[in-house]
């Protein structure tokens, strides 16, 4: 049953691009914002598409909503808030930085640092033979000192 529903819902989104996206009445900066926004908002019914590329009716509605809000002078943040209030963070392809996305956003940086430190330690370890002997010599001297 679920599969049936999903397949039916998905059919329109399989087709190609919708061109009707209308930027009439927007100035250059508004148009640029519009393009960025519709590329970063997810079409909920589609198979992983943004609302710019999808011609599902919902994507069309959402584009028009974005357009209306831009023309009404709302900021990007206001528009995104409007949509997340209704659909949740799922609509944002650019996940906001918050508690649950902490690992997502910091993960790569942490990994790079960790890996670089490990690589550095590894190259130091390959020189172990010499340092180990140095240590042993020190120990030896200590032992000798104690025995004195």
């Amino acid at each position, binding site marked *: 049953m679920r599969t049936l529903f999903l397949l039916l819902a998905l*059919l329109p989104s*399989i*087709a*190609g*691009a*919708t*061109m*009707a*996206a*209308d*930027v009439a009445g927007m100035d250059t900066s508004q148009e640029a914002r519009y*393009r960025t926004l519709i*590329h*970063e908002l*997810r079409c909920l019914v589609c*198979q*992983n*598409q*943004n609302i*710019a*590329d999808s011609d599902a009716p919902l994507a069309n509605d959402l584009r028009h909503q974005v357009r209306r809000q831009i023309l009404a002078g709302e900021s990007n943040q206001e528009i995104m808030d409007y949509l997340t209030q209704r659909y*949740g*963070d*799922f*609509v*944002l*392809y*650019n*996940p906001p930085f918050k508690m*649950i*996305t902490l*690992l*997502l956003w910091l*993960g*790569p940086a942490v*990994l*790079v640092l960790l*890996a*670089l430190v490990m*690589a*550095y330690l*590894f*190259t130091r370890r*390959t*020189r172990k033979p010499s340092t180990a002997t140095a240590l042993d010599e020190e120990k030896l001297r200590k032992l000798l000192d104690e025995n004195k």
Partner: protein
Amino acid sequence: MIPELGHFALVLALGVALIQVFVPAYGVWKRDPRALAVATSAAQTQALLVFFAFGCLTWSFVYSDFSVAYVAANSNLELPMVYRVTAVWGAHEGSLLLWVAILGGWTLAVSIFNRRLPADITATALAVLGTVSVGFLLFMLLTSNPFDRLFPVPLDGKDLNPLLQDPGMVIHPPMLYMGYVGFSVAFAFAIAALVSGRLDSAWARWTRPWTTTAWLFMTLGITLGSWWAYHVLGWGGWWFWDPVENASFMPWLVGTALIHSLAVTEKRGLLKSWTVLLAILAFGLSLLGTFLVRSGVIVSVHAFASDPARGVFILGFLTIILGASFLLYAWRAPKLASEGEMTLFSREGLLLINNVFLVVASASVLLGTLYPLLVDALALGKISVGPPYFNAVFLPLFAPLVLMVGVAATVPWKRAKLSEIVRHLRMPLIIAIAAAIVVPLYIHGHAPVAVIAGGFLGFWAIVTAAQEIWRRMRAKTTLSAGLLGVPRGVWGMSLAHFGLGVWALGVTFVSSYSVEKDVRLSPGQSIDLSGYEFRFDGVEPHVGPNYDSDYGTVTIEHHGEVVATVHPEKRLYRATQQMMTEAAVDHTPLRDIYVALGEPLSEDASHTGDWALRLYYKPMMRLVWLGGAFMVLGGLLAATDRRYRLTRAAEANFAKNSAVV
């Protein structure tokens, strides 16, 4: 009858694959040379049986045998012949058969070319490949049999997904699978090394060409996939960070790391356990990709019809194969001690840093791809991770890699002198900086910082790669002697790095200077975009072999001259009733013009009214794929370097040494 034969061949292949696993394993355990010898014949028989099954499915498609459910679901009497053949891998079941057939091909190649290696190594490797075959054959026979019959037999088939009816789809999947599956050879050698406890320069030397070959196919597959998406999806993009793309990109990154760490292991005898781990990971990520795309755990543009039972099976198989490999690794790898010293500022040191960035890049892609799954599993809600995230994370990881590409080739093994390196790289540095400023200014009249930075990276890789060849050639007196005198391995490396630079340039220009416009035009009307005049000449109905289309005509003029007449289409495929946007692209090496047809905008939807069109001007678009082509060519040259063709004497020597060990 033919489908039954195919089915039977698969069952037989499963039986033979089991022999290919267990008899050599017994031979390795008991040191029984007769049991070891079974590996080769079993592997070859298994491969031929799978090829036969593949032939049977192809036959069913060619002759439109709709009593086979898979054929009925993915073909049609009107489907052109070439797509009937490629429809074999157009959906889940058949693409699995392609996978197994390609695995058979690689297995066959290993069994033929590695006859001169120590018998136990070859036998272990073939047994490992056999294990992978067993898994996939079982998967196919239990959950996804392409030969299942359908009753009653339909009069006509449902037709191939229109997205796949494209020349790109003819070769993209086989190439990509050659790459995915090809990493299984490096994986098999890695396991053989762990089992035998022998991992030396010779091991690295014979693993290298296999890995490079798999890598070059994967590069080709990904490049073709990108090109296909660009002109078929109709969205003007060439990379979407979709899970299906990430699934191929992750093993590519790790495979690239593997190629580089193999070089260190071969030349310096270092990073042994790390190289083995990468070999396991590259194939492990290929398996993971299979799971992600076919289980339905993640939403992707190109998801196969998913079924939880399939997901459970692949997950189980993946757990067994990788779990066993990693446990074996944990047990045996500590014994693969590397001898020798390593300093960071040396070629091997820089290659280690290269590995750090490549592996972290791969891990970050994995993190981004799986994060929504994690958040969902912890019941914290649903989030999406899309291109903005991946671009933000990938760029800072990628830039250092390209910088190092330029340095590493000039840095000698063991220990480098900074003053010498600076002297070597002074010229390329100056050229790259100058080119990064001058070229964009000359072409576009303005150069944002992002373009200069990206352009510098691209030119840097290009100039240093050229310098490397030049440095090698200068020693020779004549040009031909110079060209031939440079070893293929060096050619390969330099071309691949050159390709990386070309790719980086393409990406920089496309992402900074592309212009996109959605317009409404009535027939005869023109519009200007970046100095190009687009005249819309109207739309006519057109009948294709298995679709009806609205066939548009757009004439493009530049400086008053007609440069191209293109035909964007909107096709309605008759059998599936699916609408497809066929974008029209006119390209020169320096720019692409991309026209996609939208909907009719007049009320009566007549052909003579207004239409919506989407126009793109994309400078340097071709460089993105040209870069990939250079990398493929580089891989090809590197894989066929004479060094890898072991001389008989060297092998005899190696075999003797191994026997002593």
